[in-house]
């Protein structure tokens, strides 16, 4: 694959935009950018499980939560440095995913969705009530690292980690375990007949997803520098699934954009409501976010099952080194990647 100058310019433009955004955005909203980066990381975590392995998760807020509390506890109670706290969060996320995965291996489809919901609720009602770990109602304090104290600096840290996770995702897909995970999504029997350990690779998808979500949790905790169990409810898990499907399960660029969209949506609704005193905006408040999410989901499932990634098919193909043309077969693949598209 050769990188042409025009393509290189496009990548440079995207990078410049990412670097500039925290500078341009009014300082009041810089934390929204950090949240968008964290949602992008969570979307990539969901993508490993939903997009690549073809599993369902409606309990992903629990992974974010255990990561956030583990990091907060490591930072404020154990006095660990930030980098070490992120590693702790990743490991705790992995362990949580291993527990869920162990149960989830025995079920699929609708039952898997129910098990993951139960897991999320269980975590919220038991784990997140452990006072010394989560700080109870007052919440757990999670200070930022000394190098990234300011909001703008911390945003760059979040964007940097998002970039690292993107690179990991790119490598994973091209690797032996990554290919095996995708093979079993399409057909477990075929994967097994090629000697692929189906159980092991499914569990691996859960563990990788849990680790990425745990890292996202660590970053999430230090955005406001305090987290409490109310931050990790079922509705957040649903948002994570929505942004993955609307972004285009199975496509890393699509799901990251889905994550960013759902992260900034409440703020955008809020600001338009406050600033435009004409009809639709007078009625639209941030409380409309779930309804808008539902409408986006319906539009995605009916018009673009491949999500944002499908709408940008030509652009993404070009950025990936191909022609500026939609790959019609690839859309079929993207559709197949979604959990909803498969019986």
């Amino acid at each position: 694959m050769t990188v042409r100058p025009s393509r290189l310019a496009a990548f440079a433009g995207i990078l410049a935009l990412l670097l500039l955004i925290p500078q341009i955005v009014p300082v009041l909203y810089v934390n929204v950018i950090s949240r968008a980066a964290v949602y992008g990381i969570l979307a990539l975590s969901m993508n490993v499980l939903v997009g690549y392995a073809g599993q369902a998760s409606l309990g992903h807020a629990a992974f974010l939560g255990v990561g956030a509390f583990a990091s907060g506890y490591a930072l404020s109670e154990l006095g660990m440095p930030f980098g070490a706290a992120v590693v702790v969060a990743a490991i705790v996320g992995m362990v949580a995913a291993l527990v869920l995965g162990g149960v989830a291996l025995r079920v699929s489809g609708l039952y898997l969705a129910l098990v993951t919901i139960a897991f999320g609720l269980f975590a919220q009602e038991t784990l997140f009530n452990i006072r010394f770990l989560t700080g109870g109602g007052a919440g757990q304090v999670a200070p930022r690292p000394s190098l990234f104290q300011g909001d703008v600096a911390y945003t760059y840290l979040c964007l940097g980690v998002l970039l690292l996770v993107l690179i990991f995702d790119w490598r994973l897909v091209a690797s032996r375990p990554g290919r095996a995970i995708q093979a079993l999504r399409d057909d477990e029997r075929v994967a097994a007949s090629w000697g692929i350990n189906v159980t092991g690779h499914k569990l691996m998808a859960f563990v990788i997803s849990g680790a990425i979500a745990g890292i996202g949790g660590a970053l999430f905790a230090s955005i406001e520098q305090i987290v409490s169990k109310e931050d990790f409810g079922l509705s957040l898990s649903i948002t994570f699934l929505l942004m993955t499907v609307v972004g285009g399960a199975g496509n890393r660029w699509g799901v990251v954009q889905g994550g960013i969209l759902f992260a900034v949506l409440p703020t955008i609704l809020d600001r338009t409501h406050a600033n435009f005193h004409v009809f639709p905006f007078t009625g639209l408040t941030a409380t409309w976010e779930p309804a808008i999410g539902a409408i986006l989901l319906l539009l995605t499932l009916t018009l673009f099952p491949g999500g944002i990634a499908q709408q940008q098919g030509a652009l993404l193909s070009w950025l990936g080194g191909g022609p500026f043309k939609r790959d019609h077969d690839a859309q079929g693949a993207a559709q197949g990647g979604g959990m909803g598209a498969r019986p």
Partner: protein
Amino acid sequence: MPARELTDPLLEVDSVSIRFGGVQALADVALQVGPNEIVGILGPNGAGKTTLFNCVSGFYSPTRGHVRLFGEDVTEFKPEARAQRGLGRTFQQVGLVRSFTVMENLVVAQHMGVRSNGLASIVGTPAARSEERVLRKRAEDVLDFMGIGDMRDRRIAGLPYGTLKMVEVAAVLATDPSILMLDEPLAGASGEEGSAFCDRVEQMRDELGISIILIEHHVPLVLRTSDYVYVLNLGTPLAEGLPEEIRDNAEVAVAYMGEGASTLA
């Protein structure tokens, strides 16, 4: 007709029976496959041929009986454990990864042959990268062997059925099996393609040293290619023998063609 007894069979199916609810899908089926031979399995629809494949490859657990691979009892083993011991199979409904290209399918099919570990593969160490090139080269060789080298970069979705069957065989060949079970590989193929495929199956036996079990509805081709033939009917063994013995077996002819027939083909 007495059942043959090989001294050292690669695969041995020992009086396997399987029941689904009230249906006895297989009853006391025995089968042996020796080194370097092509074994044909004949039988009308519903004879239990694919069920037998599923019992051998581990997707079904027989209610009674044993399956032995290279002398080892694998009756309780998972499908992937049997594949790891050198048993390859194709599926009646094409067994490929639908969202991948042909090349990607052949690369992931070589899963067992990859030596570098998962982490090295993700990091992309020089050793892992050079191994990746070897996988691709090998995939190309297998595709060329199957005569579908030009399909390399096509996506599975959108290929014609006959081609898919050949890609599927190529993918299983890429797993480097010692025993290869082919389930109706010629569905959707023309007569000429069928004949060319049978030449290739003989090449696999003679040049690659693979033993092949072949389920196929095209009786003359099976009789021409096979070294030994088993016939199933309604889940029970009906006959076994050399192809010429099966051709002239009156019972087999009746099962296939109805009352009054005396020879096959």
